[in-house]
């Protein structure tokens, strides 16, 4: 049903006796931006298990990107703390940054550089060099169907092609933890399936994935566990199946989502 390719996964409620090894421990995390009236993140507690695909779902402005930004060390929280591999994130930032990869929500590439040049640069910034870097770039360009166009400037790419390059830039260094902030937004069905397939493979090879999306169907099939947040607070968490089961009248994740976050428009 969910994630047929995922073998070792144990749903939460059936694993009371099985010790899930936690890779990210989020404790009372809070963030209020300068000059902001409301906190963007308001006391989040979460444990993310090693080797799972965890979905962070929520309407616009819920605090997903803010949470991810703190988790990957972009800025410190204003309250609470994060433990990664039992180490305090803020105290071990340089070493933790090496094992973390991020695929940002907004395309972060140099438009006047080619895809290959972009990837070479970002690969170097993660400490990769020489043949290893070259091979990884070629491997991923091929996997995501970009080999032909790799020597074109990114500015000439379609939105979907840019997304794919944006994705590769975050995974070249084989991170232990990968943050994906809406990796498939604006991507056609063909590309989406290819991207999701490869992400599943990366996960099977041992990478823990934290993923955000507005695409409920994709999340339902891609994630082992999800958490729905709004106004910087967690509304619920569990496997998609559990959440659907626990919501009266819901037969998919989207209905669960709407039930919890109501139909009001967000900013």
């Amino acid at each position, binding site marked *: 049903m969910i994630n047929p390719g995922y073998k070792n996964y144990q749903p939460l409620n059936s694993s009371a006796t099985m010790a899930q090894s936690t890779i990210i421990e989020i404790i009372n995390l809070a*963030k209020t931006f300068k000059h902001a009236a409301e906190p963007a993140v308001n006391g989040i507690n979460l444990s993310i298990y090693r080797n799972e695909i965890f979905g962070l779902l929520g309407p616009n402005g819920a605090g997903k990107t803010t949470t991810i930004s703190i988790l990957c060390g972009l800025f410190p929280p204003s309250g609470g703390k994060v433990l990664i591999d039992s180490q305090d994130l803020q105290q071990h930032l340089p070493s933790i940054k090496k094992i973390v990869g991020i695929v940002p929500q907004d395309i972060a590439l*140099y438009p006047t550089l080619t895809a290959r040049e972009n990837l070479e640069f970002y690969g*170097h910034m993660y400490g990769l060099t020489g043949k290893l870097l070259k091979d990884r770039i070629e491997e991923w360009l091929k996997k995501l169907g970009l080999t032909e166009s790799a020597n074109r400037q990114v500015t000439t790419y379609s939105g979907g092609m840019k997304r794919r390059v944006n994705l590769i830039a975050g995974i070249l260094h084989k991170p232990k933890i990968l943050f994906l902030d809406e990796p498939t937004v604006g991507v056609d069905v063909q590309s989406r399936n290819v991207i999701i397939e490869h992400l599943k493979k990366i996960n099977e090879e041992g990478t823990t994935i934290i993923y955000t999306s507005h695409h409920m169907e994709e999340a339902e099939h891609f994630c082992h566990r999800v958490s729905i947040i709004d106004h910087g607070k967690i509304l619920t968490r569990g496997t998609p199946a559990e959440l659907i089961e626990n919501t009266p009248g819901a037969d998919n994740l989207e209905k669960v989502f709407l039930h919890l976050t109501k139909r009001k428009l967000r900013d």
Partner: protein
Amino acid sequence: MISKLIATIKKETLLLLRDKVGLSILFLMPMILIFVMTLIQDAAFKTINEKGIPIIFVNNDHDSLGIMIEQGLRNNDLCSFNDSIDGKPATAEQAHKAVAEGRFLVGIVIPKGATDAIRRNVTQLVEETMDTSDSTVVQAGSAADSVEITLMIDPVAKKSFLNSVTSNLHEFISEVKTKIMFQTFSEQIAAVIPGKTETPKSAYQKSQIIRYKEIYASRSEEKIVPNAVQHNVPAWTIFAMFFIAIPLSSSIMKEKNEGSVFRLHTMPTPYLLLINGKIVVYVIVCMIQFLLMLSVGLYFLPMLGLPKLVLGSSYMGIFILTMATAFAATGYGVMVGTLAGTEHQAAILGSLSILLLSALGGIWVPSYVMPEVMRNISTWSPLNWSLSGFYKLFLRGGGMADILADALKLVAFFIATMAIASITNRIKRTY
């Protein structure tokens, strides 16, 4: 770390090479500026420096005073001597009119009988001195003042520039007057005390008529009079080097807007490394600009019939000063890129501030022709530190020791801009 820096340098170079507008700002604009400004200013500089200050001389005296002043003027390289207008000997009125029209910068009229007047005064003086009765008190100065030499000055001419010239003329003319007085005096004395004729004359011969002071006292063998090329080549090169602030700051802004900075902040690489990569690339760009402008001055301007750029003797000094200027310019670009909120702001803030700093710094108009107040303000512009350094090297044959202070000021400026940039980055954080 080295491979990261190299990757950053490579990235920055590629970005710059693909930025055609930025490239043309960096290389084409200053070359055009040098050509245009030098050609425009050459005529003006030329009248003063190549041919000398144009002087119209009217000699109504036709005696020792007139002849000696004429000789002195003719023998001086700094003035171009004329005593006729339209082929005919000039009258005082004609000279006045010609100076007013700007055909000459200075006019000098020696009145009729000037020499005689001096002689008469001296004779009178001697007679009164010999006449032992002390009833008359004689003032030597007042006697000589009865000879009125007219000095006319083009009202349009830069006052400060001509000040030194006219004061030198005054000095020279009174020197000649004194000489004639002295001669007459010794002749009179000789008439009274026979046998003493030779001594005072030869004693006077030793003191030379004072020549005009040169505006630039060059220490090197070859004396260099400032010309349009010597000013414009270093001036616009410095201007161009500082103009990198615009592409550099826009590259910093772009990196922020395009999200690369976001990604880079999550990477195990300090942001400073990225900035260092930029600094390396843009300092190299500055050095290339410098070489390019230098070659314009050395090879292309002479092709247009302009004088060739003279470099002076200290290549080490030139290198150090250029490096210091390059760092100051790069630091300035980084500072503008951090202070500005958008690319648009960076471009406006960058170009306006550089125009202002360059005008103040004496790039457009050399600071030595500025009024006193502006000249003092001028010394606050980093472009002025660099330019005065290049003047020392190119015009006065200075070396390392002479430009060290200028270079250190530029390096200090670089450090200050980097400090401001890093503080601004901290303040500007929205989280």
